[in-house]
């Protein structure tokens, strides 16, 4: 166990090196550096507008970095297109759910599975036997992924006909179908009540183990973050505020100030 950890330490799955992003005069992320070991489940927290989603967009190539570097699995991924980064093994979900709304639930997952499909355009035109076989396999596989998040009964419903909580689960299933090594979850429990969010936390933990993932999680539900994450990185105003284990973060005065305001300090002193 110990030797494994040491070996992994030398070669992180994801490494951010002084990553910065400016939009005109606004700095959304400044000098963000952290690394994520294989198999780790890390939380990225911070108040609204702290630059967490921007960090996701920089890792996945949606935005171009202003400066810094992102290294995934020993390869520099800075400057690559999002679809190339996905193919290297990075998948994500979106804060403001971006499903293919008018398509069926199972088709949403099929599109993700296509990422690793290789049959040619010519054979697709003629729908050769090989293509038919592959298509059938894709569909079956898609149902398995739906099964993993408990959505198999909704497979043929229209994606946007489901309630929000289920749509978030579908986003997770779709991301898993990309067969990623690194999974980025952007507020998967947003809008859920405490019971639902704890149930989701359990699901995330199960999936993390079952698919041998490395997971980076943005979340506002602190009970979810504290229950799941071995390591937490806190951002505020685009900057690093703190980094550490759940216990360390919970007692960090800077973090408490950012979350509870100046009033917290005075209350503590008196």
């Amino acid at each position: 166990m110990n030797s494994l950890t040491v070996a992994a330490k030398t070669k992180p799955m994801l490494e951010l090196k002084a990553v910065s992003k400016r939009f005109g005069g606004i700095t959304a992320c400044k000098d963000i550096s952290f690394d994520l070991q294989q198999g780790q489940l890390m939380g990225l927290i911070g108040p609204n507008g702290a630059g967490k989603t921007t960090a996701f967009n920089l890792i996945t190539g949606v935005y171009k970095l202003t400066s810094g570097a992102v290294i995934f699995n020993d390869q520099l991924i800075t400057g690559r297109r999002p679809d190339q980064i996905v193919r290297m093994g990075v998948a994500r979900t979106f804060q403001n759910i971006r499903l293919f709304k008018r398509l069926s639930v199972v088709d949403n997952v099929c599109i993700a599975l296509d990422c690793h499909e290789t049959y040619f355009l010519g054979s697709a035109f003629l729908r050769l036997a090989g293509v038919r076989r592959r298509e059938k396999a894709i569909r079956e596989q898609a149902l398995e992924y739906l099964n993993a998040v408990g959505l198999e009964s909704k497979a043929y419903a229209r994606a946007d006909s489901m309630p929000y909580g289920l749509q978030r689960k579908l986003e997770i299933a779709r991301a898993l179908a990309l067969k990623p090594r690194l999974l980025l979850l952007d507020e998967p429990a947003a809008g859920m009540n405490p019971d639902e969010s704890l149930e989701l936390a359990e699901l995330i933990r199960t999936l993390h183990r079952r698919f041998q993932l490395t997971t980076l999680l943005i979340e506002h539900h602190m009970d979810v973050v504290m229950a799941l994450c071995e390591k937490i990185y806190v951002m505020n105003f685009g900057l690093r505020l703190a980094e550490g284990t759940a216990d360390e973060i919970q007692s960090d005065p800077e973090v408490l100030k950012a979350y509870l305001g100046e009033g917290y300090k005075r209350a503590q002193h008196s």
Partner: protein
Amino acid sequence: MFIQTLLTGLAIGGIYALMAVGYSLVFSILNFSNFAYGSIIMLGAYIGYYAMVKLGMPVGVSIIVSILGSATLCYLNERLAYSPLRKRRASSLFFMISAMGTSIFLENLVYATIGARFYSFPELFKTHNLAFGGISIGLLDVFAIAFSFCAIMSLNLFLQRSRTGIAIRAASYDIDVCMLNGVNITALIGLVFGFAGALAGISGMFLGMKYIVYPTMGWITAKAYIAAVIGGLGSLPGAVVGGVLLGVLETFVSAYVSSVVRDVFSFSLLVLLLMVMPTGLFGRFLEEKV
């Protein structure tokens, strides 16, 4: 020869700029390509022609009639074809199709009722030339340059200085916020279409006087679309620069190379520019919010 070509180019460029501004103005507010605009320009030319030739009105009055007529048509166009979509918050794709439909409808309605005949304005200015220092320029071209300049300048002044103008500029950034701040958006959009229509009337008159009046003269407005895209859709200074640039370059190409190459040239220019600058010269750079 060079200065002569430049002046002719400026005259055409001025008209292109007028059309491009009208088209871009609508784009800046509603974020879609108003492909019906070409037909409004064509109808503007017909209205001007009827006022001047059939009703015997003087040139100045005819221009005013054409402006008023086109402004009304453009306003009605918005009320009938776009505002139902706006209320439903339809995507810009639907607006574009509706605009295409309007354009097809209007052009062919003119074909079916008035016919495909060519009409030409009386030779009022065509024969008059101003000559100075060995350069001769048509009086019409001088008018076109002067008139386009004045029209664009007064629109600019209005947008920069008046309360309504400021509201229009605000709406082009965020229509919802504008509405929450108590601006009557329906009236504002109506006004914008009215302005665009007025510009269509002026450019229609000049196009008609320079060339001829016929149902598909709206295709010249494809040049206006190209000019607006070169300048960056939704940017009014961009539309002016794009229009003048396209007019001048085209005139040089037809003068020094051949007039056949001209249209192929403007298309190639467009594609080349978009490859380098996907949002045109002055287009607002929109990074998708994720």
